[in-house]
C-alpha cells in the first residue's frame, strides 16, 4: 500500500504571533518552526499501517527550502521518501493543486493530511485534493483501520461520531485518536539524511484568495477579582453585568 502524507511547517505552538509594521505579513523573526502537530498524527498512523513491508509512506510538502528540517523530521520519524514542491504555500487552493498534480501521476491508495494547520487552520486542503482528484474524502477522522481493500473510519460530528466505510483511494484528514505521535529515534535520525527527498517545481495556479492584512485580538479589560466565597456575586455579575446567563 502506498500512502502519501501531506505535511505543513508551522510556527511552534508557544509562538507569540506578531505582524510587520503595516500588518500585511506574519513576522517570522525568531520564530521556531515545527511539523504541524496533526500531521504528526497522520504520519504516525501511515507508518503503523505500512510497517513490516506492508507498504511505503511518502511525505509531500509545498514550501521553500527553509522547511527542509521539518521534512527531514518526518523522514526521521519513519517515512520512506519525500517530495518538496518548491514554492511558498500561498493559500490552500495553491497547495491542494500542487499535491493533486503530484498524486495524479503516482498511484496512492491513501492520502492523509492533518485536521488543520495550526497557522491558517483552514481545514481545506484534504477535501480540495480529493475534489481535484474526484475521489472521496473524510474530514476530521478519529480512527482509521484497514480491512481488505477497504478502510473503516470514524469521523467526528457535533456531539457524536459517524462510522464510515470507504474503498481506496481516498483522502482523510486526521485528528487525535487516529494514532499517538512518534518520536524519532537515533537510527531514524541517521537514516533520514540519506532518504530520498526530491524537489519538484510548482505549477502556476490562478489566485482566488488573497491574504491582505492581519490583526491581533484587542486586549481584554482588567479582571475583576472575587473572594473564594463570593460565588453568589459572580453569578449576579454574569447575569446583570455581562448578561451571559
Amino acid at each position, binding site marked *: 500500500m502506498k500512502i502519501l502524507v501531506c505535511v505543513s511547517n508551522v*510556527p511552534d*505552538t508557544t509562538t507569540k*504571533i506578531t*505582524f510587520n509594521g503595516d500588518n500585511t505579513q506574519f513576522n517570522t523573526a525568531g520564530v521556531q518552526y515545527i511539523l504541524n502537530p496533526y500531521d504528526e498524527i497522520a504520519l504516525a498512523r501511515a507508518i503503523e499501517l505500512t510497517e513490516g513491508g506492508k507498504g511505503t509512506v511518502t511525505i509531500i510538502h509545498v514550501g521553500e527550502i527553509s522547511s527542509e528540517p521539518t521534512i527531514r523530521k518526518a523522514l526521521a520519524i519513519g517515512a520512506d521518501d519525500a517530495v518538496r514542491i518548491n514554492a511558498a504555500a500561498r493559500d*490552500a*487552493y495553491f497547495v*491542494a493543486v500542487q499535491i493533486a498534480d503530484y498524486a495524479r501521476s503516482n498511484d496512492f491508495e491513501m492520502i492523509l493530511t492533518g485536521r488543520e494547520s*495550526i*497557522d*491558517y*487552520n*483552514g*481545514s*481545506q486542503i484534504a*477535501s*480540495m485534493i*480529493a*475534489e*481535484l482528484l*474526484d*475521489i472521496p*474524502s*473524510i*474530514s*476530521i477522522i*478519529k480512527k482509521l483501520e484497514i480491512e481488505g481493500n477497504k478502510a473503516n473510519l470514524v469521523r467526528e*460530528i*457535533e*456531539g*457524536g*461520531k*459517524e*462510522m*464510515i*466505510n*470507504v474503498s481506496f483511494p*481516498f483522502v482523510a484528514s486526521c485528528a*487525535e485518536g487516529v494514532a499517538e505521535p512518534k518520536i524519532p529515534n537515533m537510527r531514524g535520525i541517521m537514516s533520514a539524511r540519506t532518504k530520498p527527498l526530491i524537489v519538484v517545481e510548482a505549477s502556476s495556479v*490562478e489566485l*482566488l*484568495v*488573497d491574504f491582505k492584512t*492581519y*490583526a*491581533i*485580538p484587542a486586549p*481584554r479589560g482588567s479582571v*475583576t*477579582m*472575587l473572594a*473564594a*466565597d*463570593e*460565588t453568589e456575586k*459572580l*453569578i449576579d455579575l*454574569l447575569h446583570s453585568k*455581562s448578561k*451571559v*446567563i
Partner: protein
Amino acid sequence: MSVLVYVENADGKFKKSIFEVVSYAAAIAEQLKTELIAISIGSVGKDELQNLGKFGASKVLNVSNDQLKSFVNQAYASIIAEAAEKEGSKVIVLSNSFSAKGLAPRVAIKLKAGLADSAIDLPEIENDKFLIKKTAFSGKAFATVELISAIKVITLNPNSYQLKETAAAGKVEDFTPKFKESDFRTMITEIVRASDKIALPDAELVVSAGRGMKGPENWAMIEELASLLGAATACSKPVSDAGWRPHEEHVGQTGIAVSPNLYIAIGISGAIQHLAGVSSSKTIVVINKDPEAPFFKVADYGIVGDAFVVVPQLIESVKAYKSIS
C-alpha cells in the same frame, strides 16, 4: 444573481448556528441587493424549512431523497454547486461545522471559487473588492482575506453572528438534482450521537476543567455545574491525553477552538496553547488556587481558591439563582 446558503440539519432539525448563518447570508444578500436562497438536503419537515424564511431566505430549495439521508460530502457538494449554477449564486455560505469542512472546499473547487473559512463578520464590499475577516493562527490572530474570484464561498463560525428575524416568509420548493452514482463512494455504517449533551463547537456556555481537578473521578461536579447552566463541558489537553476525558472535549490550539458567550476555566493554568483556542470567548471566568496563574491575565472574573471548595459553592449559587429566575 443571488446568495445561496446551505442549511445543514441534524436529525431533521436546524440548530441555532443554522439560523445564524441564514441571518448572516441574508445580510450579505442585502449588501449585494439580491435575494437569499437556502438549500436543504436530507429529510426535513415543511414546518422546519418554513422557519428559514423568518431569517431572510426568500426561497428554500428542498432536496429530499432516500439516498441523501446521510451526509456524503461528494454528493452534497455536487448538489450545492448545481443549485448555485441554476440560481446564478455569486456567494455561497455555510456554517463552519465538522461536515462543512469536508463540503465547502469541494463546492469551492467545483465553482472555481475562492473560499474564506471561519469568517467572523460580514464582508466589507467596496467597488469590486470583497473582504472577509476570519480567525487565524488558532485564534491568536485575525486575517482579512480578499476573495478575488467571481464566485465566493464563505463558512461562518458558530456563535459569531446575531440572529436577525425579518418579516418575509420563504416559500419551499422541491429541487431534484442530477447527481452521479460515483459521488457515493463512502458509506456511513453507524451514527452515534450523545443526545443528552450539548455539542462543544456550538455551545454558548462552556465549563472547562484542567489538571487541577486531580483525576477523572472528580468530574461529577464539573458535569453538574455544566448541566445546571446548560453548558457544554471541555478540558485542557493533558486531561484528554491522560484519558480522563474524551478527545473531543479538548480545546485549544491543537483542539477545538471555541468562542462561547461564557467560558469558565477551573484548575487550568492558561498556557498559551490553551488560550489560543478560547480567548475569543466573550466572557471568561477563571477559578484557580494559584494567584499567579497566567489565565487570570485574560479573564473577566477571577476567583483564587481551591476548586474543590469553590465549585460546590458555585453549584449552590447557580441553584439559588435558577430557583428565583
